[in-house]
Structure formats: C-alpha cells, structure tokens
C-alpha cells in the first residue's frame, strides 16, 4: 500500500499552450471513436472508394489521350465508343483546361455524393463519444475545472468530428485527386484539375461545419447514448422521407432532410449542370446525349436549391449551437 509512501514531487516544467490542450481533447475523442469496429469499417470503405476513384480518374484520363491503351481497347470494343472517345480527345487537344476541369468536376461531384452518406454514418457512430458520455459521467465538471474555457472544450470536440470527416471525406478526396492526376497522361492535369480540387475542398468544408454543429448538437441533447443516436438517425433517415413528398407536394419539405441539404451544398459548389452545358457545347457527340437528357428534365435535379438550403442549415446550426451551449454548462 502506497499510502504512507509520500513520494510527491513538485513539477517545474513549462505548460503547453491552449491549442495543444484543445488538440488533446480532439485526439482523445478521436481515439475513442476509432475504438469502434464499425467506425473502422466505414473509414476503410471510404478509402477503398478513394482507390476506386483513382481508377476512374485513370481511365478517364486515358480516354482523353488518342494513343492510350484504354482508347484502343474501347475502339475494339465498340465503334460508337471509339467515335465518342475521339470526340473527347479532340476536345482535350483544343481546350485542355475546360475538358479536364469539367470531367474532374463531374467526377468529384459524384464522389462527394458517395462520401456524404458514409460521413453521415461515421458521425452517427461518433455521436456518443462527443458530448453524451461526458454528460453521463459528469466529465464536463472536470474539463471546466481545468485550464480550459467552455469554447476550448467545444473546439476540441469539434476537432473530433473534423478529424473523422478528414478520414472519411477530405482525406479520400485529396488522395484520389493526387493519385488520379499522378496517373494521368499529362502533368497539365494537375493544373487543369485544380478547380475540381478547390470545389471538392469547399464542399467538404461547408459540410464539415454543418456536421460539426449537428453532431455536437445532437450529442448534447441527452446523457443517454441510445437516445442521441436514435435522434440523429431519425433526423437523417426520416428527414430523407420528406424528399419524395416534397417533390410531389410542397418543395420546401425537401429541406427537412439533412442529407438533401448537404447534397444541395455539393451541387451549389460544383455546379454540375453548368459543367454538362459546357460539355454539351464543346463535344458534339456528347451534345446529343445531353440534350436528350435535358429534354427529359434529368438535369433539373442537378440545379441546386440554395435559398432553402441555407435557411434550413442556418436554422439547424443555430439550434445546435444553442443546445450545445446550454447543455455544456458545468453545473
């Protein structure tokens, strides 16, 4: 028994700064999240999708070069495909900056819509680790009694969500872009694809802010893990049920869906409809296909509804911030 073993020593070292302490909270939370097996599966899936995206970028890059093996293979496969590829190649030769930008923009827009639900799932798994468990174990008092303010604690917790989205969304996007362009036939792809990367980063950033607010807000609602996960799933999945309802009746109902709003942000950033129009104007063979698509109204779905989206997201953010701020008072 060490009770009489008074080996207490004074500590004379230098204290670390506030950002380091915020990082400690973020890293601790992230470690807790990664301890969940399902979380690791989701992250693995995101990185596998990044590899798939690299493959797609490689193939598309090869399609834009006349002598590439992919073009030869496509030509052998189908004469119509050959014509299509020739059209793309001509487009690249004439307007490399537009063709690479448009194709990568469209591909990363599609990729964002793939990663968004996976990131929403990751946040669902992380929610109990954010504030809920601190509420149930009274850890908030411990944090508040240390050299931290409430917003330091919250920034640390926001770092947990940011770290997760870095692993499920930002990381895969950046790596896919880098490797995809590294495998492209021309170094110019890096330069011409910079717009697509910028759009992808902006889309991730906006979604990140929204998911940080929503994640922390839902996590702070209750000290019971099942309750907060249930609430988040309801917010996510039941919200999605309003989308078809809104399509048929009142369009504003669609904005009750978190995923729909996040999708609108992605569409607003990438503007795929505009990219398709550019492609239609520049590649004659694509023009026919895209014009038919336009006549069927398929492209209307790619037009972002930004006004309603901003109102919905701002309301959700405000509500979340209010919940978090009131629920994380130490007493």
């Amino acid at each position, binding site marked *: 028994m060490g009770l009489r073993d*008074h080996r207490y020593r004074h500590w004379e070292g230098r204290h670390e700064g506030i950002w380091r302490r915020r990082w400690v909270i973020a890293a601790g939370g992230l470690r807790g999240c990664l301890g969940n097996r399902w979380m690791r599966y989701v992250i693995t899936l995101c990185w596998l999708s990044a590899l798939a995206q690299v493959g797609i970028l490689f193939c598309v890059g090869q399609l834009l070069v006349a002598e590439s093996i992919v073009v030869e293979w496509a030509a052998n496969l189908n004469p119509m495909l050959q014509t299509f590829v020739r059209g793309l190649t001509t487009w690249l030769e004439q307007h490399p900056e537009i063709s690479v930008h448009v194709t990568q923009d469209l591909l990363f827009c599609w990729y964002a819509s793939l990663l968004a639900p996976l990131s929403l799932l990751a946040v669902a798994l992380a929610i109990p680790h954010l504030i809920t468990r601190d509420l149930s174990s009274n850890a908030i008092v411990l944090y508040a009694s240390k*050299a*931290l303010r409430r917003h330091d604690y919250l920034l640390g917790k926001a770092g947990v969500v940011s770290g997760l989205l870095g692993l499920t969304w930002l990381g895969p996007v950046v790596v896919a872009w880098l490797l995809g362009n590294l495998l492209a036939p021309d170094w110019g792809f890096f330069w011409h694809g910079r717009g697509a990367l910028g759009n992808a980063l902006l889309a991730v950033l906006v979604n990140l802010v929204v998911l940080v607010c929503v994640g922390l807000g839902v996590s702070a609602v209750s000290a019971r893990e099942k309750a907060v996960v249930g609430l988040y799933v309801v917010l996510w999945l039941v919200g999605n049920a309003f989308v078809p309802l809104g399509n048929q009746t009142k369009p504003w109902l669609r904005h009750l869906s978190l995923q729909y709003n996040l999708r609108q942000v992605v569409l607003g950033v990438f503007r795929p409809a505009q990219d398709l129009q550019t492609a239609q104007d520049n590649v004659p063979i694509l023009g026919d296909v895209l014009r038919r698509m336009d006549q069927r109204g398929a492209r209307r779905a790619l037009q972002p509804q930004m006004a309603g989206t901003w109102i919905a997201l701002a309301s959700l953010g405000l509500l979340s911030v209010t919940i978090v701020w009131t629920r994380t008072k130490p007493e």
Partner: protein
Amino acid sequence: MAGCEGRGVAEAILETQGLVKRYGRFVALDGLDLRVERGAIGLLGPNGAGKSTLIKCLLQLQPLTAGSARLLGRDIGRYGVEIRKRIGYTPEQDCHIPGTVGCEHVTYCAQLCGLPFQAARQRAHEMLDFVGMGQERYRKVDTYSTGMRQRLKLAQAIVHDPELIFLDEPTNGLDPRGQAQMLELVQGLWRVHGITVVLSSHLLHDVDRICEQIILLARGRVQVHDTLANLKARRRGAADVVVGRGQGELMSAFGRRGWPCELLPNGHVRVEHGAGDLGVLLAAMRELGEAPLEVIPSPNVLEEMFVRAVEEAHGAA
C-alpha cells in the same frame, strides 16, 4: 506553520468581497467577505450552507451574481484560466473521463492542465502511487469502487502540482479506514508538500483532524472564520460537568458563584467558570460536596458552533 517549503505563506490565497450568488430567489451566498491565508482550511457548514457553491463560484463553474473574488492574488474574472492552471479540484459528485483506465484518466487530466504527454504520464503514475492505487490503475474507471474513485479524483486534482486544492467532501462514501487514509493523504498535502488545502465538509471530525483554519458557513454567510487554535482557546474557561443526579442543585450553586451555566440535552451541565484550568471548578465542587462522574474541559467548540449553525439553518427554513 508546517508545509511552507518555498511557497509564501503570508499572502492571501483567497479573497472575496461582497460575494453573492443567487439561484432565482434563493440566496446561496449572501455577501461573503473573506481573506484566507495559505494552510489547511476547513470549510464547514450544514447541507445547503453554500460550501460547494462557494467553491464552484471561485472556480468559475458558476457565475457570480455580485461581488468579486481573487485566488492566488489574481482576479478570477480576468485570469480564470491562468488561475485554474495552479488549482486542483475534486468535485463532490462522481465524475470521470468515460472509457478510460485509471492512469489514462489522470494522464489526460494532466494534459488538460498543460503538461506535455511524457511529463503527464510520468506524473500520473507518481500520483497514483501517492494516493495508493496499485494495479487498479490499469482497470477501466467505470468499474472502480467508491473509494478508488475518491482516490482517483484526488490524483487528477494534484497531478499538475497545484498550489491550492479544493476538496469537496472527499471522504463521502468511504468506510472508516478509507476515510482515515484519505485524511492522512490530504493532511500530507499541506504539512509535507506545502499545497494549500480547502476541505469542504459537513463532518466535524475530518475538519478538526487536519485543518488549521476554519470557515463556518450557514445560510450563505460566514458565521465564524478563525484558526482552530483560537476557537479552542475561546472555550478554555468552560467545562461540561457530568453528574448522576442533582443537576438542579449544582446549577443553583454555580449560579450563586456568578458562573453562567446551562443544562445540556444529554444531562451534562455546562458551566463557564472563566479560569484557565479546572482547579477552580474542582475546588468549588469539593466545597459543594459534589463528586462529578466526569469533567470535560473546553468542550468541543467546533461542534457547538456547528450545531448552532444547523439550528439557524433549520430556523430559517
């Protein structure tokens, strides 16, 4: 004074001026004016006296309604974070970082106070040794017994080597042996290591055993603030006389000598004889022909004041 290695003792470590805390219409702290120097300080008072509220206000866990406070010579409103780097706190209620094992928990708390990871880990193990945690440190905190949790709370509160530590009911839920061990540790913090201790408790024994200064709170006000030695000196001229029967005659005889006295609920006669020792009282009793069963010199003033505070609190309720 013990426990002052390298740390100034004369300066006020805690000062409050007109400190008020209200919860709606309920006044928890009613214009507290305090000036406390380094040492082992007992914060006594019945439940609801405002002890925990005072600590929470000083640590800024609760906002003040009015007044001001200084800790370690600095204003808590302006330098809250800086002050908390030098302060430890063990809350009354159970609290821990979820999902951690004991040493992770203490390391994490040290890092939150600004210690680099290596130093934090090393000190976490040292503090866990200090509070007497053995292999339990590698167990999940969620599985700890009450005693272990109390020790863990103490370890996390001192891991960053604070100058001042607030202990809110640290012996709650402990068995007598655990209580004695915890008090021994807390006593050592001031006497051996020079860390000023503010021990909040409603247990007189705890405070009496380790504290040198006493602050008695009741209904959010300071009833008494003095050193324990001074408080005990106040009662040197009094004694409790235990007799089998004839308390009434004894009281009349004391009255004739001009000694105020009263009959206590336990049948003892409390008499204020005013002398520095019991010689006068014993001589008077010999004259009266009374043979007391027991004479208790300087009856426990702390207990008496505490009882009075409880009665006042109940009276107010």
